[in-house]
């Protein structure tokens, strides 16, 4: 959910990706912008995605645990 007081918000999803909302610029190692094709994107955190840097749901089948105790 957008919070009007925060321009960019990153949500660490338990055992899942980082959800990025707001006008964040995502860049590669050379600083080139990676185009976001939707207003909210999910960044892979498990390392298993086939479409980096985006999440493709692989964390659900590779046993990834974020260990961030978000709940």
């Amino acid at each position, binding site marked *: *959910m957008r919070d009007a007081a925060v321009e960019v918000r990153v*949500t660490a999803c338990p055992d899942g990706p980082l959800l990025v909302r707001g006008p964040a610029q995502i860049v590669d190692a050379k600083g080139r912008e990676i185009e976001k094709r939707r*207003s909210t994107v999910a960044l892979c955190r498990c390392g298993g995605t086939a*479409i980096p840097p*985006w*999440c493709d*749901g692989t964390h*659900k089948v590779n046993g990834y645990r974020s260990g961030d105790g978000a*709940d």
Partner: protein
Amino acid sequence: MTSTPVRDTAARDTADHPDAADHPVTAATPRPPHQARLPLPAARGPVSGALVAALTSGPPADDAGERLAPVRAALAAALAAHAPGSRDILDDGDVQLALLVMYELHYRGVEGVDDAWEWEPALLAARRTIEGPFEAAVRERAGTPTGTETDAPAVARRLFDLAASDDGPSLSRYVAKRADAEQVRELLVLKSLYQLKEADPHTWAVPRLAGAPKAALVEIQADEYGGGQVGRMHADLFARTMRGAGLDDTYGRYVDAVPAVVLVALNTMSLFGLHRRLRGAIVGHLAAFEMTSSIPSRLYGNGFRRLGHDEGTTEYFDEHVEADAVHEQIAARDLAGRLVEQDPALRDDVLLGAAACLAVEGDVAAYALGRWQEGGSALREPLDAHA
């Protein structure tokens, strides 16, 4: 989309529908497929036959109740033939088609049927006669799950667990590795009734929610509708995939081809979506739908690539790998989770919706795989029979 040639069916639609006639189709301005109504389906038995006859007899008037008498009679006989307390109604293609036609009046409408039928009380009464046993059967099929979760993270975890423990057969794995060219075309036909109106049944929930869950649903649906861009709407991407596979992307074109099990999956969404009291269930349905999409979409895309389809044809699936990995997170926590926090009494309905989605969509997969493994068609008639 705009390069789609004008089809015969489009020309016929224009003649049949006054609203389409306001925007005459010319060679220079092909009629967008978005205006199409559901083609009038062929009867599958006495109930759908009587219904189609009544609905095409002109707009409802004071005699609507009398004109629907044959529908009530056929319906009473059909329901009486089902074993009491059974799930026979889920196998009854005739009754399921009748319900689909009644529900479609709330979406795009049905060819040759006056829109005033949508809120005709006598027709709604007949619909309720089907919905009672239908809802009972769907609840039983879903196994009426119950929970104790009270906060959003716990609800999300429960939903992810439900989806992960679903042991239905995997249609996507079969498509990735083994399906032949004709079977993937059949897959698209099976999906087309929903995917050409993708997201619409869940959109009914928007005005029924408030606060955080409403914002979450809008965030998901906006993406489903391509961020408001024609051509990027997921239904449009699916239409492109159909064209790429040599299929007709006219809305509802294959309604006569799909088996009862597909009608059940569609009617389940409409039942949940059109009843405010079941808003928890349509939310749970969406969450489960999103949770079982990103990985299967990659497998579907792989199957289409294996069979030589191009990027334009696989884009629908490629888009869903990325989109639904976002949507499932929003749907689980911000939509379903926050809804349960807001209204704990809806928790079991959320779980019901999720379990029902997994069950009825799993039934479609099992049916198609079963038919294909027998060397048959998953459609009521193979596609070449219609050519």
